[in-house]
């Protein structure tokens, strides 16, 4: 499972960098972009196993991006995991309603992020 490609989408550069660092250390290949449009463009050529996406982003938000990924027959098989703020419980349900396969709450826990990503990848393989 290590070595799989993860597409990370977050407009907050601190979170984007930290996620990139942690997932690379866990052995994943990481492609990091700062907005949803870049992510959708990247999916034209990149076939990540999992997209880790912030929900609240300027322009297209993570929910709309997820809907588009899940509507497209070419990309609907990609596991999409939302990054949501702890205090925003309603965001978690919105993420699932939009088609996300799960969510990880922020702030990012560097100890557990890799494990959580592997769990979601394993679930994706089963479904």
């Amino acid at each position, binding site marked *: 499972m290590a070595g799989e490609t993860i597409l990370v989408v977050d*407009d*907050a*550069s*601190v*979170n984007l*960098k*930290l996620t990139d*660092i942690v997932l690379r250390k866990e052995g994943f290949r990481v492609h990091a972009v700062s907005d949803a449009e870049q992510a959708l463009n990247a999916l034209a050529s990149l076939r990540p196993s999992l997209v880790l996406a912030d929900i*609240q982003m*300027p322009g297209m938000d993570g929910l709309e991006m997820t809907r588009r990924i899940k509507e497209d027959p070419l990309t609907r098989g990609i596991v999409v995991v939302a990054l949501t*703020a702890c*205090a925003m419980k309603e965001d978690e349900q919105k993420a699932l309603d939009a088609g996300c396969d799960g969510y990880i709450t*922020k*702030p*990012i*826990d*560097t*100890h557990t992020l890799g494990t959580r990503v592997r769990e979601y990848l394993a679930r994706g393989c089963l479904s």
Partner: protein
Amino acid sequence: MPLQTERPNSTAGQNASAVLWDLPDSLREFVSGGDPEMVVEILTLFQDDSSVRLRELNDALAAGDRDAVRKQAHTLKGAALQIGAIAMSGLCREMELLATSAPGPQLLDLACRTWECFERTCRYMLQTENWG
């Protein structure tokens, strides 16, 4: 870096007792693991990105764009919490919650306090930058 904490002495309101900065264990471990440069890079990113976002937040406030204020406060809150800038994160959370309902002067006051807290946090980070 000594990785200490400081309590702000000039931050008014309910966040007055909040810790100014306390590097989280998850980042501290990069230091103990022999990779302090990574933490420096993340803290520098935080400072650069937050200063831009705080300016954009002030512009949004001046333009009366409450939704933009809320979104910027949300992102600032998350970044601050991630690097352990606890007092700033609390102020941003307050601003996010009040962005669409509070009177303009109250939001302006909160924005000023957030700026002040951010600057104090950055100064404190610089003062304690001693990676040995």
